[in-house]
Every structure is written in C-alpha cells, then in structure tokens.
C-alpha cells in the first residue's frame, strides 16, 4: 500500500490520475523576423481520468502527441497550462524535493530501449539506480531486489553484470521494465513499451504486466499503435489526433461502436485480412500526410483528411461530448455518422 492512498480525495477515491485541459506547446521559430512565435501544438487541451488499478490506452498516429501527453503527466515535458492531479494533488507546478518525492510513484518504460539505458553502466547497477537514489533498503537488500526483478522480467541473474550492448533489443526492454518496477511505483507509463519487442516476448511481457497489475494494483497508461494489443489489454481507450483526443471510451464501447471517422481509419488499417478489411480500407483508411502541428487552423483537426467533412468542420472545433456515459466523441457529425457505420458493420 502506498502512502499516496491516504492522500486520495474521498470524493473521487477511484481516480489515481485526473488530467484537466492539459496543453503542451513547443516554440517553433518565428513567422518572419518580426512576426510572432510559432508553436508546435503537441498537446492541445487534453482531459481524461484514470481509475486506480486499470489500464488507460492511448492510440493515434505518429506525432499525435501521445508521448508528450505521457511525459507531461510525468513532469518530463514542460506543461504550458492545465492540471495534472495525481492521487488528489495537482503536480503540474511541483518542483524541488516534493517533485522528486512524487517521481518515484510515476515511472515510464520507453519506446526505444537502447537510448533509455546508459551504455557504460552494468544492467544490475541501472536497475539498482532508482533504489540507490531514493535510499530504498540496505545494500544487500537492494542486490537481492535486483535479482528478484531480473527474474520477474525473465532474465537470468548473470544478466546483472552485463552491459546494454550485450543484450538483444527484447532483453534490453525487459531491463527497462525491471528498472521501472524497482521503486514500486503506482503508475507506470508504457510508451510503445511492447511495440519493439518480438511477438513471443511481447506476449510474455503483456502477461507479466497484467500479473503485476493484479498483484500490486498498478495503474498503467499504455501507449501503443497496435489495436489488437490495445483492445485486449486496456480498460479505457483514448484516440488522439494532432494534439486532441477525438474519441474516448471503454475498450468495449470503442471497438464495438466507434464513432469518429479517424477511429474508423485506424480500425481499417488494423482489421484482419479479408474482404471486410478491403471494404473498410476503401471507405475509411485516410491517405496522405497529417497536417502540420505548427499553429493549426481553427476547425476540426481532421478536416483535411476526413471523408465526411462538411463546411462547418472548417470553422468550428468540435468539442469532446458524451454520446453515452462511457463514450465521448469530438465530431460535428457524430450522430448522423453513427447510422452509416452501423450499416457498414452489418
């Protein structure tokens, strides 16, 4: 049990994380020598809540802001505005030692295991590092814990003495997971954490993550582009497009009654081969480039590529509205499109 449990507000005992209107803009030069500064709208007003012990999935195209959202939650990307309420406390403005204290409850496993590890330090030392930094346990307890963590992620004890380049990609990602587990966090962000792993190890790691979740009541933010994995692994799923959540719902809702045209495009790309997929691809798979995230125009972000766009979409940004208590969609045409989609499905 974590000390944070007691800090949780009694009004929402269930929500470990509550993100409110999160904005992350990166400066991107000036428009001409005297012009105003341009900004990459990496995350542009994102709100969601994650219940303790559940998995919140984020899917979306490359550059849609999934990682930046997660990094901002972990306070590893600069927050332009918005709130990040973790265990009842807004951590968006924390600094110094309260921030360091908070960090051990929030861990991340990155997409690229190679750049996430220090090439000159032995594997065991890297797993031990958070324990040393946070002063957890005695020296021999830490060694013991390192061995246990290695075993938990399926590596032999000798692995502790090797350097990162002596491991294969999959083995390196296991090291990263062991390191993230070391300080016994409450929330782990898995940023494409299984995407670079081969399917056999991916299955082992997903099974492992589920077991750890059951045993320790861990909460996950799970970023992935693999809808097959997301559908089975996540309880709640948000679909991001150019810095915005365009659709969000329980995994059951989102994949049985998807509403947003972009969600349909993702589904068309992921559907199993066969005539159904061919038809879906033809109708829904978007082509071409996603537009630039630098100073996006008003209106729906998806308008340039949306097969269902109407005039209104160019002028007015659709808000993320509930179409039922566990399902939100940001599309002006959500209600009339729902019917077309139902026809296609049947």
């Amino acid at each position, binding site marked *: 049990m974590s000390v944070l449990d007691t800090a949780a507000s009694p009004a929402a005992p269930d929500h470990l994380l509550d993100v409110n209107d999160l904005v992350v803009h990166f400066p991107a030069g000036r428009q001409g020598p005297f012009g105003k500064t341009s900004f990459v709208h990496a995350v542009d007003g994102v709100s969601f809540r994650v219940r303790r012990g559940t998995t919140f999935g984020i*899917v*979306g*195209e*490359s*550059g849609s802001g999934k*990682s930046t959202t997660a990094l901002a939650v972990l306070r590893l990307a600069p927050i332009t505005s918005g709130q990040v309420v973790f265990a009842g406390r807004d951590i968006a403005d924390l600094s110094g030692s309260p921030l360091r204290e908070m960090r051990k409850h929030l861990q991340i496993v990155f*997409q*690229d295991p*190679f750049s996430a590890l220090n090439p000159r330090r032995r594997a065991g030392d890297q797993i031990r590092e958070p324990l040393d930094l946070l002063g957890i346990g005695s020296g021999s307890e830490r060694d013991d814990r390192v061995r246990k963590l290695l075993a938990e992620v*399926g590596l032999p004890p000798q692995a502790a003495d090797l350097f990162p380049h002596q491991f*294969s*990609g*999959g*083995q390196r990602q296991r090291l990263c997971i062991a390191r993230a587990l070391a300080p016994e966090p409450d929330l782990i962000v898995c940023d*494409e954490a299984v*995407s*670079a*792993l*081969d*399917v*056999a*190890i*991916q*299955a*082992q790691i*997903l*099974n492992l993550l*589920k077991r750890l979740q059951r045993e320790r009541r861990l909460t996950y933010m799970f970023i992935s*582009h*693999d*809808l*097959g*994995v997301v*559908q*089975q*692994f996540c309880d709640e799923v948000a679909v991001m497009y150019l810095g915005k959540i365009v659709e969000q719902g329980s*995994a*059951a809702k989102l*994949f*049985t009654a998807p509403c947003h045209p972009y969600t349909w495009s*993702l*589904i068309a*790309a*992921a*559907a*199993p*081969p066969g005539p*159904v997929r061919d038809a879906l*691809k033809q109708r829904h*798979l*978007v*082509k*071409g*480039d*996603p*537009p*630039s*995230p*630098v100073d996006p125009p008003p209106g729906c972000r998806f308008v340039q590529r949306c097969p269902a766009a109407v005039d209104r979409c160019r002028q007015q940004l659709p808000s993320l509205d509930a179409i039922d208590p566990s399902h939100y969609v940001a599309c002006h045409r959500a209600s009339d499109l729902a019917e077309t989609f139902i026809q296609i*499905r049947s």
Partner: protein
Amino acid sequence: MTLLEVDSLNVSMRNAEGHLVSVIENLSFSVAHGQTTALVGESGCGKSMTALALMRLLPEDFVITSGRILLEGRDLLSLSAKEMRSLRGRAMSMIFQEPMTALNPLFTVGDQIAEVLRWHQGLGGSAARERAIALLRVVQIPAAEQRVDAYPHQLSGGMRQRVMIAMALAGRPKLLIADEPTTALDVTVQAQIFDLLAELQQETGAAVLLITHDLGAVAELADEILVLYAGRCIEAGVSADIVEAPRHPYTRGLLNCVPHFTLGRAPKPWVDLGEIPGMVPPLGARGADCAFLARCALAADICRSRPQPALDPIGPGHAVSCWREAGGTT
C-alpha cells in the same frame, strides 16, 4: 538468375575467452529478383546478424567462418572493402532497426539524404534537396518542406524511422534489406509503408529481404518465409504454407501469441496470451541437439538423444527441422 544466394553461411563471435561461438549456423537461402523473402524469429535469433553479414557490416568480434554470399553471381566475401562500399546503398541497402544509431545527430535529415543522392546519383544542390523532399513525402513525413531542415532529435521515433527508409530508397537498390522497418510505426503508416515497399518493387524490380518478428504481419507481403531460431533455420517455405500449415512447434507458437484485433466485438476479459515459455538460448549455450528443446511442449526422448535434425523437405517448397514432424533426419 537469382539475385541473392546464401550458401551454408556460418557466423561466429569471439567471446571474452577468445573462443569462437556460433551465431548463425549453416544458413542457406536465395532471393529472386523482385521477390520478398521474410526472415522471421524472436529477438536474439540472429536476424540482424544475418543482415549485417550480407552487408559485410558485422560488428567487431563477429566473423564469417564459412559459406558463400553471391549477389548477382558475385562473391561478396571476396570483394575488397572499397568494392563493398560502392555496392552498399546502390546494389543493396539496409534499413536499420535502431534509427538513432544510423542517423547522424549533427546533420539535418535533408543533408543526410542529399549526401546519399550525391554519392550514388551525382545529384547536387537544389536537385538533391528537391529529391530529398520528394522522398520524405513518399515516406509520409508531414510538412516535408520544413522537416527536411530538422535534426534527427527534433523528430518523433516514428518519423526518424521513416527518414531511414527514405535514405535507403535514395540509391535505388536492387536488394533492400529492411530490419524491422515498421516496428516503431503506427498501424496506418505501417500499412502505407508496406504498400510503398510493394510499389518500389513493382517500379524497380528490387527484391526485399524483410526482417521481422511478426509472422502474421508479413504473411501477405512475403513470397517466402524463413523461420530462424537460435541461429538455425528451422522452417522455410512458401509464405501461405508457413502461415496456414506451420509444422515446427516454434512457428506455431509464434502464430499463437499475437492478440488479434476483432472487429465489432467487445473484448473478452483478459486471458493470458499463449506464450512460448523461456527464452532463446544465449550465444555459447547452444548444444548440438534441437535448439528449441528446452521450450518445446512436444519434446520427446528422440529429441534428447539426437542432434538437431536437418532442414528436411516435407512437401513442395516447404522444409522443417523437427524430429516429431515427418521427415526429421540427421
């Protein structure tokens, strides 16, 4: 004539004690012009090392101990370092698994693509820049005109991988070795990149050696599939045969551990995925017997008392190395 012919390739690594340990054992396969051959297997099975051996870019301590690699009849192992350099990028090029290690952090992506174009096609100045932008568009980089001036660290992981693909395409190679080219990409782009590879093949007649761990994902794309386990080819054949009627327990395991996306159906409560227990034996821990023995649910006495069976034909264009499958012989 086949484009690439690999004949009994053996690659070893010199370990800390100075002993040679096997990395790739007796690997033979060929790739015809314009064909796609997939090399499939788990992490650590030697897929990348096979690719690097073909490119003659093996890391220090790794040596090709025997075998032949013929590209259009030319024995690559007899070429000088200089001859190999002029071949790379033009006759054969490679998309690396870890894009950050292959991109130079100090140059813009445009400069790096232009460099390849200058070297292989004599394109310079604005022509090279135009072509670099066109290539970035081909690989679906948003705002290509601006991103051509970006440094690698300013791009997301997915975009970096696409820059790598653009660079590999720049020299119009006859053989494109793609080491896990889409692992870091999202599904929409993954579908587009696979279409792109197919298009490139149509246009230039280039052959593709596609390296992946996801057997299901390449089934449609590949003409032939080789399944590698612990440095040994344990099953090979025509793509449809391998996917529809896999014979080796390892190949079956690979097909069973993938969570498949199901349309219009609520997900079932979590049931652990079918996993292949254990892991690939590390280098130096691979005996003479079946390398899959320790993880195999079908292992029997015969597997323990005999060495790894030969890769035996079991039908037209289908071969397997397993004692429990028809045809297992030494």
